[in-house]
C-alpha cells in the first residue's frame, strides 16, 4: 500500500510540474502586458515596472525563480493589486468558495440521487417524465441566467432573500442553488439511467421474490452498482465547485476565489494565474485520486487501478 502511495505521489508531482511548465509558457506566449492600460504609459516607465517585477529577465530565468518559490509555497505578489500576495488572495478567497461549494455539492448530490432514484423506480410514468423535465431545465438553463432570475423573483419581488453579498446563511441560498442546478440535473440523470438498468437485473428480482422490502433493496444492492458514474463525475466536480464560479460570484458579489481564475488572465497578472492554476491542480488531482480509491469501495470487483493489464 505504501509503495502504491509513494508511486502515486510521484505521478502527481510529475503532473503538477508539467502543468506549471505548460501554463507558464502558455501565459507568456499570448500577447498582452500586465501594466499596459488604455491610457498609454511612456515606454521608460513601462520598462522600469518590468524591471521592478523581474519581468525583464529571460523566460527560463523567471521560470526557475518561480519554481523555487513554488516549492516554498511563496507564490509571489500580484502585479495588479498592490501589496497583496497570491498566498493572501488564495487564503482569503478559498474559504468562501469552499463553504459555498460544499453547500452546492450537498444539494446536488442529495437532490440529484433522490430525483434519479424516484425517476428510475417509476420508470416511464409521470414522475419519471417530471424529473426529466426538471433535469433538462437544470442542464439547459445556464447558472447565471438562473441566478439573475432568482435574484429578481426571490429577492426583489418577493423579498424572501437578500439580493447579494456574503455573510449570513440566507445569502448563500441563491448562489448555492444556482451552482447546484446543473450538477444536480446531471447526477439525477446518471443515477436514473444506471438504476433503471440495475433494477431490471435478475438478482434484484430474486431479492424482491425473497421478500426484501424496496428500501433495503435500494440501498444494499441497487445504489452501489448504479452510482459508479456519479462518483466519477463527483471527482472533478468537487474540485471545480469548491474553487468557485466566476459568474455566480460576480452576480452575487461573493468574495470567493472563482473570479480570480478569469480576472488574473484578463489582467495578465502572471503570478496569480500560476498560483490559482497550481492550487486548482492540486485540489483536482487529490479529488481524482480519492475517487479512484473510492471505486474499490463502491464496487469491490474493481481492483486497484494499475494492477491489471489486458
Amino acid at each position: 500500500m505504501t509503495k502504491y502511495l509513494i508511486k502515486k505521489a510521484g505521478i502527481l508531482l510529475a503532473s503538477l510540474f508539467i502543468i506549471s511548465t505548460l501554463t507558464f509558457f502558455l501565459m507568456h506566449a499570448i500577447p498582452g502586458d500586465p501594466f499596459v492600460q488604455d491610457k498609454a504609459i511612456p515606454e521608460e516607465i513601462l520598462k522600469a515596472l518590468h524591471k521592478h517585477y523581474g519581468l525583464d529577465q529571460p523566460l527560463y530565468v523567471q521560470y526557475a525563480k518561480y519554481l523555487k518559490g513554488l516549492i516554498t509555497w511563496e507564490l509571489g505578489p500580484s502585479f495588479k493589486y498592490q501589496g497583496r500576495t497570491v498566498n493572501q488572495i488564495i487564503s482569503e478567497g478559498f474559504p468562501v468558495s469552499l463553504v459555498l461549494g460544499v453547500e452546492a455539492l450537498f444539494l446536488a448530490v442529495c437532490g440529484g440521487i433522490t430525483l434519479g432514484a424516484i425517476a428510475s423506480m417509476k420508470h416511464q410514468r409521470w414522475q419519471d417524465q417530471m424529473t426529466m423535465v426538471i433535469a433538462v431545465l437544470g442542464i439547459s438553463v445556464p447558472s447565471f441566467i438562473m441566478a439573475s432570475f432568482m435574484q429578481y423573483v426571490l429577492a426583489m419581488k418577493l423579498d424572501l432573500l437578500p439580493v447579494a453579498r456574503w455573510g449570513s446563511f440566507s445569502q448563500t441560498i441563491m448562489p448555492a442553488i444556482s451552482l447546484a442546478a446543473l450538477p444536480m440535473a446531471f447526477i439525477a440523470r446518471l443515477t436514473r439511467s444506471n438504476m433503471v438498468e440495475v433494477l431490471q437485473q435478475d438478482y434484484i428480482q430474486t431479492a424482491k421474490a425473497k421478500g426484501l422490502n424496496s428500501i433495503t433493496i435500494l440501498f444494499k444492492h441497487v445504489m452501489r452498482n448504479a452510482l459508479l458514474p456519479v462518483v466519477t463525475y463527483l471527482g472533478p466536480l468537487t474540485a471545480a465547485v469548491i474553487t468557485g464560479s466566476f459568474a455566480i460570484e460576480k452576480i452575487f458579489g461573493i468574495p470567493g476565489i472563482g473570479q480570480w481564475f478569469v480576472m488574473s488572465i484578463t489582467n495578465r497578472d502572471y503570478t496569480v494565474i500560476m498560483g490559482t492554476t497550481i492550487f486548482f491542480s492540486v485540489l483536482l488531482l487529490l479529488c481524482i485520486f480519492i475517487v479512484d480509491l473510492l471505486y474499490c469501495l463502491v464496487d469491490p470487483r474493481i481492483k486497484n487501478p494499475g494492477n491489471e493489464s489486458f
Partner: protein
Amino acid sequence: MKWPVCASLSLMLMASSCQNGGPSSYRPTKQELRLNIHSEPPSLDLRKATDVTSVSVIRMCFEGLVSLDENGMAVPAIAERFEHSDDYTTFTFYLRDAKWSDGQPVTAHDFERTWKTMLLPTFPCEFASDLFILKNGEAAKLGRCSVEEVGVQAVDARTLVVKLDHSVPYFFSLTAVHAFFAVPEHIVSAHPDWADNSTEKFVGNGPFQMKEWRHHNFIEVQKNPHYWDQEKVRLERIFLTLIEDESTELTMFENAELDWAGSPMSTLPIDAMASLKKKQEVTTYPMSGVYYYVFNTKEFPFNNIHIRRAFSLCINRKAIIDNITQSEQVPAMAMIPPTIWKEERRYFQDHDLKEARREFDLGLEELNITLSQFPPITLSFNSASAHHKIAQAIQEQWQRTFGIRIRLENKEWKVFLDEMRHYKFQVARMGGIASFKDPTTFLDFYRYLSSSNNNSQWTNPRFTELLEQSEKIFDQQERTALLMEAEKILIDEMPIAPIYFYTGSYMKKPYVKGVYISDMCDVNFKMAYVETK
C-alpha cells in the same frame, strides 16, 4: 408534488406586486451613506492609483493643496492661500494648520517627498507622467538627473514652492488632481505597506478616514475628527460594497440596500435606462471625455484624408446616442468636450451623407481605385457590450452608405491594447477622459508621432508647432486661440472620428444631499449629508 409549490409561489408573486410600502418607504436614521463601487481598487496609495474607482475612494481620505468649486475654479484646501509668478512658471502654496488623521501636522515636506518619490526611476507607478509638468520631472523619472533637482521644494514646514517646466496658467486647478496630493511622510518612510490594508497606518488628511477594508468585500470609512474643516462634514460613515454586476447593484438600490447607483463609481445597466428615465429617477451630468474611433493613418486606405472624412461624416451619432447608449451624451463633431471650452464647436454636421459620399468618391479618385477594388475594412474593439453594439450600428451605416464590406473584430482586452500599441489595426474604438481640465489633455495625444497615445500615427507640423507655442504663452485668450486652431487642424485631417462626449448617469435616493460630482468624475462627499427621519 411540485404543483402546490408553484401555485403558492405564483400567489405570493401576485400578492407582492400589489403591495405598497417596503423599500420605497425606507428612511435612514443616521448620517450614513451606502454606496457601491464596481471594482476592487488595485491600490489606495494615491501615488499608484490608476482608475476612477480607486480615486473616488482616495478622495474621501485625502485632500490636495486646492479643491475645485462648481465652476472649476481653485479654492483653498490644505493650502490656505497661493500665488503665482507673472510668467506662470513658479507657484507658491502657503499651507494651513491641517492635520493627518493620526494628529500629526500636514507639512510642505509631505508634498515635496510624495512628488519626488513618484518621480524616482525605481518607484513603480504608472502615471508619474502627470508630474512631468514639474521642472526636471521627466528627466528625473528617466534617470537623467537626481530627483532632488525636481522643481518642488518645501521652503519651510508650511510653504511649498513649485517650479514648472513651462508656463502653465491652469496649474492651480491641476493641483486638485490626486497625483498632486500628499501621503504622510512620517508613516510612509517607516512602513512601505501602509496603504495595503486598513490598519492604523492608513493615515490621510481628508474629510474621512479608513475604518475597514475587506478586500473584494467592502470598504468602510468614517468621519476624520482631525480634518481641518471637520465641522462642515456631516456624514459620520460611508459604507462601500464591492459588487461588480451592475444589474445586481441596481436591484440592491431599488431594494433600498444602497443609497446610490451608477456613475462615477459604477455604471447603470444600459437596458434599464429607458425604463428608469421614464420614471424620471436618473440624473445625468456631462463628463470631460470623448468616445471616438481612431484610424491607422499609415495603413491603406486610411492614409487618404478623404476616406477618413467620409467615414466620420457618415456616422449617425444622434441615432447611436438615442438608441444605444441612451444617456443623453452629446454628439461629438469636435475633439474637445464642451465642459472644457464652454462654447460648443461643430466642425461638421452629424450624419452628413451627401458630404460623406462626396468625400468617399474623392478619396477613391485620389487612391486611384474603383469601388470594387476597395478593400474590406476591419473594425476592432474590445469585448464589452456597449462597444459591440455601437460597432454593429456603425458597421451597418458604413456598409449601407458606401456599399463596402466591414468586418467586426471583437478582441480580448489586453490583446486589443497590445495590437493598438503595435499599430496592428485599421480602425479601432478608443475613449479618453481628461486627466486635467485643459484641452491639451486630449490634444497632446497627437503632438508627436512618437507620443505614446498616438495610435493613429498621425502627425502635422503646424499642429505640433501650435501646441509647442501654447506652452510659452500665458495669456488665456491667446492660448485658447492657438489651441482652437490646433483642434481645427485635427478635425480637418480626421485621424480620429469623434463620436460622442461622455456623460455620467446615476440614481440617488431623495434623502441624499450635498454630493458634488465634477465633470472629471471627481466625486466629493465632504458636504454630503442624509435627510433623516
